[in-house]
């Protein structure tokens, strides 16, 4: 039954899936609970153009896509700080402009030989070893940063004003979280796809917060749920012959709906007991 594990491409797929899943779960609460979850969506559009430029200029597209997307992220944050532009609008301006530029580059260049569909839904089974290594480096950076700055980040996420009062470097920390999100998104786009990458950021905290009463346990449960879902989703996609990214998202949705249903049932039973 587990013969498929001997294939190198499956090992790589599971490896990168796990790295991305854990990175996403650690970043997730800092975006989801500050209503910035859709920044991942915007950054995916930006990294699309970054990857296109990378593909045209080098055999290692990530080397171009990463700095390009980081610069765009810093620009989004900077625009969001302008009083007359709100954060959502800043994401919209930069992401749609980047996407537009990406399509223009494709249309005018002869040398672009990569499948657009593949970039939209990702191709986790064809990733090179170098991407796997970069994904683990990013996962380690994310885990180390969030562990070291756990308390100030919690303060910043829950109560920005009190964090500022407590002299937490709110601006720098939120820029670093945005840059880490970008790193995750750029790597995730080529594996999970532009359309689905934000799901990896949104689901872990959403699911974990249904099961926990504290931020710490949300982070831990999120990482566990994320790891299991990604691995299970990839294996399921292998047997069903479905795209891995899409399968992972559907598994996430199933888990979320099941938990919401169970919680609703529990609440109903509790209320009935109370009324007896």
């Amino acid at each position, binding site marked *: 039954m587990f013969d498929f594990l001997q294939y190198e491409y499956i090992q790589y797929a599971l490896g990168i899936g796990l790295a991305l899943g854990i990175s996403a779960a650690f970043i997730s609460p800092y975006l989801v609970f500050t209503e910035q979850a859709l920044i991942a969506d915007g950054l995916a559009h930006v990294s699309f153009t970054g990857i296109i430029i990378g593909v045209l200029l080098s055999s290692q597209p990530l080397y171009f896509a990463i700095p390009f997307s980081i610069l765009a992220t810093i620009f989004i944050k900077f625009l969001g700080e302008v009083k007359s532009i709100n954060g959502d609008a800043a994401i919209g301006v930069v992401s749609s402009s980047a996407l537009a530029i990406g399509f223009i580059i494709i249309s005018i260049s002869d040398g672009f030989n990569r499948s657009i569909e593949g970039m939209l839904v990702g191709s986790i089974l064809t990733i090179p070893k170098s991407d796997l290594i970069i994904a683990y480096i990013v996962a380690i950076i994310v885990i180390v940063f969030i562990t070291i700055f756990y*308390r100030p980040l*919690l303060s910043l996420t829950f109560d920005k*004003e*009190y964090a500022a009062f407590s002299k937490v470097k709110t601006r720098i920390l939120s820029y670093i979280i945005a840059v880490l999100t970008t790193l995750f998104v750029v790597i995730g786009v080529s594996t999970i796809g532009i359309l689905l990458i934000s799901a990896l950021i949104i689901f872990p905290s959403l699911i974990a*917060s249904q099961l926990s*009463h*504290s*931020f710490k346990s*949300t982070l831990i449960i999120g990482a566990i749920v994320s790891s299991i879902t990604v691995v299970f989703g990839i294996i399921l996609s292998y047997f069903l012959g479905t795209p891995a990214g899409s399968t992972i998202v559907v598994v996430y949705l199933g888990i979320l709906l099941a938990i919401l249903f169970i919680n609703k049932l529990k609440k109903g039973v509790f209320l009935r007991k109370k009324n007896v």
Partner: protein
Amino acid sequence: MIEFKDVTVKYEKIVALKNASFKINEGDFVYIVGPNGSGKTTAVKVLAGLINPSHGKVITSDALMGYLPQKLNNGTGFPISVKEVIYSGFIKQRIKTSKEDDALIQKWLDKMEISDILNKQISQLSGGQQQRVYFIRAIISDPDILILDEPTSALDPVFREKFFKSLKEFYNNGEKTIIYVTHELDLLEGIDTKTLFVDQEIKYYPDTKEYLERLKGETNV
């Protein structure tokens, strides 16, 4: 010591605070009073370093400050425990809390009569319980200056008295500095207090009784 020198705060074109000049000395208990929308919270936010004045200067010493804001995050949709909220008030924060920190948190929870809520989610508490939790967060690091913005707005009358008792103990006859924003002045017995009346401009009363007499006079006219 805190000193406002000709401080003006503007939001766009609206003046929230105008040419405010006053001094709060170490050991003072100062009420900040005034009608709704008069600029009390703005004054406190300038004091806490959260707003920069549009004009003028604020001089503050290096003293450690604790702050209870008026608007509290009720934690809706945010999985955070009471312990995590209170712990964010500590100056030195470790990833894992120490036994001493835990004991101190529990001591204050007992004092605020909310002993058994340590691991509860903050959103599950009533408004009054949340206000007590945020008060503990403000006081937990034993600050030299404690800034309280409408600290009893959600407390029931019975507990309000117990709260005042705890506050008096903390003040300890001038060992700490307390800045207390309220629109309903509950005078603490046995403490000499000062008052800043804010209505865009600030009027300083070195004795709260003087302010109350003036208020009485105005009401009688």
